């Protein structure tokens, strides 16, 4: 509607395709290609193979897929409960307290992840809270980093929820707990699912805090990818990255499906 001539539009679209291709499409394509590459010395790989994937599936890398999934799931679940709880109870507070606490809940998202890891190392390396070297400290790091996102998503959902639903429910005789379980939470479900999906994705890709605190037996995908590429094994690194990307995308799309069906939109 801004450019009316056909040729003008074509030029603009080619320009768009160029930017989009170079910045967004090429990286994804090239990772996919390299994860399947046999040898790559020229412009294009000399052959294709699924060897890197089978290597990855057999080797220690499989453990990092597992570690990432478990960490992501537990940290996201905890963040979801805590974020929803926080958002719901903040609603009952006065405006000033609400603003202050709301801000505090967002701060973890603003602090560099490496510093979060450093803080956990400093705080939990001595008794009585000796967590350094445990899996728990990885979970905690991920929980802290994603808690702001779940809180933000749920708060946004609550803000959009018309108070009419809950008020009508009350007037019909629903006590607060019944109302929360049968009205508020189901209506928030799309936001809860979105929050969980985003947390999970962020946790799966988390690197900064994890490299600070991870114990030897709990190497997450990003750490594993880094050590592979650092050793020069970039094809295996690419294969593992593809697994990470695929898992993230499947997760996000799947959750979107579920939400769409649940809300019927």
């Amino acid at each position, binding site marked *: 509607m801004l450019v009316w001539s056909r040729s003008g539009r074509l030029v603009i679209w080619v320009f768009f395709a160029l930017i989009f291709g170079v910045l967004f499409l090429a990286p994804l394509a090239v990772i996919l290609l390299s994860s399947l590459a046999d040898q790559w010395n020229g412009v294009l790989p000399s052959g294709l193979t699924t060897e890197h994937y089978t290597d990855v599936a057999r080797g220690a890398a499989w453990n990092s897929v597992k570690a990432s999934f478990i960490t992501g799931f537990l940290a996201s679940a905890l963040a979801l409960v805590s974020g929803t709880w926080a958002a719901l109870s903040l609603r009952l507070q006065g405006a000033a307290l609400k603003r202050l606490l709301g801000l505090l809940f967002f701060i973890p998202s603003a602090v560099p992840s490496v510093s979060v890891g450093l803080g956990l190392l400093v705080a939990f390396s001595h008794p009585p809270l000796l967590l350094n070297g445990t899996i728990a400290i990885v979970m905690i790091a991920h929980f802290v980093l994603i808690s702001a996102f779940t809180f933000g998503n749920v708060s946004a959902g609550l803000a959009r929820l018309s108070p009419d639903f809950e*008020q009508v*429910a*009350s*007037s*019909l*005789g629903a*006590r607060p707990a019944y*109302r929360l379980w*049968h009205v508020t939470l189901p209506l928030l479900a799309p936001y809860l699912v979105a929050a969980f999906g985003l947390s999970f994705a962020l946790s799966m890709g988390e690197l900064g805090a994890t490299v600070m605190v991870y114990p030897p037996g709990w190497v997450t995908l990003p750490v594993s990818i880094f050590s592979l590429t650092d050793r020069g094994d970039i094809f295996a690194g690419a294969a593992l990255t593809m697994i990470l990307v695929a898992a993230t995308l499947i997760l996000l799309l799947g959750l979107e499906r579920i939400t769409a069906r649940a809300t*019927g939109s």
Partner: protein
Amino acid sequence: MSAAAFTGSGVTDIDAAKVRGAGSNVHFDKVVVAYGSHVVLHPLTLDIAPGEILAMIGPSGSGKTTALRAVAGFVRPASGRIRIGATDVTDLPPYERGLGMVVQNYALFPHMRVEDNVAFGLRAQGADKALIGERVKDALATVGMSAYARRYPRELSGGQQQRVAIARALAVRPRVLLLDEPLSALDAQIRRNMVEEIARLHRSLPGLTILYVTHDQTEALTLADKIAIMRDGRVCSHGPTTDLYRRPPNRFTAEFLGRANLLPVTVAEAAGPKGFATARHGDAVLTGAARDEKAGDKSLLCIRPQHLSLTADSEHTNRIVGTLREVHWQGELTHLVLDVDGTPMRVSATKLPVALPERGASVPLFFSPADTSLLPEDAGV
């Protein structure tokens, strides 16, 4: 409409007797609502009789919705008490007040089917399954939505959603039904039908007490037994609907409820035993229904546009002369605007003289004393 089934003679229906005769009265006792120092409801004292439809109308910000929300329990009065039936509900949470509520945008729970929406209140109160099933069936039948029980709200039209919302409120057998602008989200045509349906519904559930908040005077006039007109957080007038329309106690009421011509007059002779006083407007001597006006009082003579006629008949003993300014033909009605010594007089006529006068011509207007009402001249409440 199978409202008879709804009001219920079923054997399992233990509350049937209680409900049939049994809307509760609502009593506002000097209820004040304030947000901080901002008072939105000045001491409000008002009664709604059992089985009565009270329409609260007024411009936005007049406190009518606040009054309804105070009954529902969403707004806590700063002082004063609210009683429903014999119970003082002022300190009760909303879920213990035994009400039904319908709001402007229906607020049907989108994740529940129609039948689950209607069952919601009973389930929340822990009623047993058989009773819930029967009540849901009855409530849906009452609003003519039985065929839609398995649908989701998003699959229904606005009018259908509103019926379900009403069924949901009725299923709990509320002591009082609160309707908060229930029709203002609907198209004009559907709104007219729904008004008539609510009227029918109330005829079939005569025990149901209804507090109906609206800004639409037509809804109020059609439905209400009594009307309370709100203005700036106060009740500006309150009374049976026809009385309030025919004999508005003040200027705001006259102009808010229907259209009104207000002709300034001076009372010449106080009301006799039949309740009619004589008043002068310029040279014209007019007779109007009076309250306690005394001779010499400045007053306003209220005449509704449809009661002014260009042709005289035996009832029309009052006559004034104005200058014809505008004529708008609208099919069923013709609207005319005349100027009577600077006061515009609107006429809605179904009958016109064979030869319609020209604009600018002097035209006599006739009206019956029975269709008039004298009211105080001051603009205040």
